[in-house]
């Protein structure tokens, strides 16, 4: 049994790595067609890797809630927002335009995760007994309450017990400097002051291959995030295979039975809400933290749907599938259309896109597809979401188990259904 599990893990690792390599290769080709230089190519792949890692993290956290315990939480964006904003308020400059508490970054991150976790716990209590669709509506409503609150002018600045702080309302809030910069520069807030010894060395090396220092810094951050994805995977894998995780799967399969067997399912669901939402908050912090600024518009409900689409593509219930779904969604479905537009625009030189769809459709009657393609490319951001919706409908109708969903984590500790096959194999091996 142990042997099999190791094989299983190794195999999964191979699938994820080959997906990463394959997608990188694809984007290298795209960059070559676009005629980007080496720096541009490296930067493009960094962007894809970064976004893939972010989605993989959130999807893993969601998988713990939906894939393991069957909790249909569609307030993901709200929990991410609360993590990011709490971190921003804790670390903000007390004398800034939007005052904060001025505490160090690690405290901010811990505070953000705890706040997201606490809010998750809070919303779980009234929703424990609700049916899935009610739960969906309440969680999305709760996420909207959080977003409207962050957007409200009332809380632009406020004070608790005489300490001034604020959310910055619709204009957003500044986030602390990315600590990765400290690795390369002596003063992260003023790059002109010089580099550290490590920075001199690494930048010097990459200058030879003409990669800019800013790209090196973002690459470092992307690599850190990929490591964090590994940590997320490990944590959720361990949770899933613990006795705690087995109860979660039992709840997913049949909550009444789990209850009848003496498990207090309410406590388990509350814990899963707290852990999952905390991880979502952390993922939000690591995502927005690299931009140095965030605003409530980033956390609209559609963000939650993106994460759900990624999980459904990968296959809800499978951790490796979650990572795969995150990678495939972020690179091919989310960033992909933009690159398709750029490639087509680059290869075929279109005239200016028509102003309206009717002007774009009329030439089709004379077999001139050009204006329609140009119009579609100009409005690719709308068309992309239409495509996402259709993909979602297609998957749910034809392959609801997702890419790797056939490997759904088993509810029992031993795979009873496949046992005879394994035994004969082992006998052969012996």
């Amino acid at each position, binding site marked *: 049994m142990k042997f099999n599990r190791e094989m299983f893990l190794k195999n999964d690792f191979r699938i994820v790595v080959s997906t990463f390599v394959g997608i990188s290769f694809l984007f290298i080709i795209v960059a070559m067609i676009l005629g980007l230089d080496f720096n541009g190519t490296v930067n493009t792949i960094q962007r894809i890797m970064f976004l893939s890692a972010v989605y993989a993290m959130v999807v893993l956290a969601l998988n713990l809630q939906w894939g393991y315990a069957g909790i249909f939480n569609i307030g993901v964006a709200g929990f991410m927002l609360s993590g990011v904003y709490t971190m921003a308020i804790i670390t903000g400059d007390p004398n800034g335009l939007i005052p904060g508490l001025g505490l160090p970054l690690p405290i901010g991150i811990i505070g953000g995760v705890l706040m997201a976790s606490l809010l998750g716990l809070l919303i779980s209590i009234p929703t424990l007994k609700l049916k899935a669709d009610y739960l969906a509506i309440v969680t999305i409503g709760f996420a909207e309450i959080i977003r*409207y609150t962050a957007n409200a002018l009332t809380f632009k600045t406020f004070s608790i017990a005489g300490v001034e702080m604020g959310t910055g309302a619709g204009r957003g809030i500044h986030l602390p400097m990315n600590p990765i910069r400290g690795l390369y520069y002596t003063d992260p807030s003023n790059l002109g002051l010089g580099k550290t010894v490590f920075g001199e060395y690494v930048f010097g090396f990459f200058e030879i291959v003409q990669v800019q220092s800013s790209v090196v810094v973002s690459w470092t951050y992307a690599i850190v995030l990929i490591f964090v994805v590994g940590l997320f995977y490990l944590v959720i894998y361990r949770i899933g295979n613990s006795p705690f995780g087995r109860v979660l799967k039992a709840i997913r399969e049949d909550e009444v039975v789990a209850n009848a067997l003496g498990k207090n399912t309410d406590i388990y669901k509350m814990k899963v809400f707290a852990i999952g939402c905390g991880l979502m908050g952390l993922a939000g912090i690591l995502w927005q933290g690299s931009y140095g600024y965030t605003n409530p518009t980033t956390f609209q409900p559609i963000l939650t749907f993106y994460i759900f689409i990624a999980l459904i593509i990968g296959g809800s219930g499978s951790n490796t599938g979650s990572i795969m779904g995150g990678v495939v969604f972020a690179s091919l479905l989310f960033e992909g259309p933009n690159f398709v537009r750029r490639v087509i625009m680059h290869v075929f030189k279109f005239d200016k896109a028509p102003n309206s769809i009717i002007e774009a459709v009329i030439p089709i009657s004379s077999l001139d597809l050009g204006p329609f393609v140009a119009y579609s490319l100009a409005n690719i951001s709308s068309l992309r*979401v239409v495509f996402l*919706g259709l993909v979602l409908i297609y998957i749910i*109708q034809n392959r609801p188990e997702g890419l790797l969903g056939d490997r759904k984590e088993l509810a029992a500790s031993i795979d009873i259904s496949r046992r005879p096959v394994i035994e004969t194999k082992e006998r052969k091996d012996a």
Partner: protein
Amino acid sequence: MCVHSIGMIKYYNILRDKVQKDRGTTLVVLGISILLLDLVFQVIIGKTESQIVATYLWDGLVIGLAIGLAGVGLSLTYSILKFANFAHGDMITAGGFSGWVAVFAVMGVGRFDMKNLLLVGAGKPINVTELGISVSTTPVAVLFGLIVAIIGTVLLTLAIDRFVFRPMRHHNDGIALLIARIGVSLALRYGLAFVFKTQNRGLTAASLTASYSVPVGTGSVQIDLGEITLVLVAIALMVGVHVFLQYSTLGKAMRAMADNRDLALITGIPTEKVVRATWIIGGALTGAAGFLITLERGTISFQFGWILLLLIFAAVIIGGIGSVYGAIAGGVVIGFTSTISLIWIPADLANVAVFSVMVLVLLYKPEGLFKGVTTA
């Protein structure tokens, strides 16, 4: 004397039992009573003027009936098809757009570029004052738009049911249906954005719409004909739905199916036909709601239905999901909450108040306020 006091004790006991059995409701009633007392007190001491309260009440009623009307369609499909339709908000938007395409084409023919009229001014903005649409001056065109909106939405609903939901009818997995609906919602909303572009645009000539001022206290309340139309048509449609569900054979079949699908099937009710009828009626109400709401507001954008959707869900949940009258009552509760709450809290937190009311209702009365009177 003695008999009297026994009677008192009896009443007291009944009251006490009721309070203990239904503590949640009691708390809610208590909370609302305190707020109402404070409101009356504020008006008496002159902190809040009575005309402001009257304006809030009228606006709340208009918003509430709009949400209620939109909610009836949602509630109807929910009770028969047993799952929350996340694409409902975008159906409302689609209804609004289809109606306005017709009104723009009829009103602007010959004077404006037809291609642009058919896209409600997506190509280049249309001067709506010059176009001159309003309930007061061009009621026939507006009525035509309402009819087109209803027909357009019904056709769209049937098409979506045919291609998305019918292949999934055998699925008993509610979550799969919910996800499919989210997919429909995304595709529909951004499909509309692809065709009609993303900008918010004006529809009616505000200066032409008749407006009446009703004196209240020291000031007055402004009521315009768009709002009156919405209120009257909403009430008429709701009464229509009530009569239909209570007295027609199809309505009875729908109620039977909502009650117990299997029983309805073995009694000989053609369930697939009833499902289609439900979509038609639900779609018609949705289209009408989309057109009337945009008529009252005078503007439209590709997201307006989606933004309304959560409020509609809140209304339907507060009223008791699946109940048609609950949807209306819930809508009115939402409408009043979103306006009257402004007496105590700033305007940008009105939605927070509304969603909080929804969470509170779920906390204390998850079956909704009007569970006892469900007929659909």
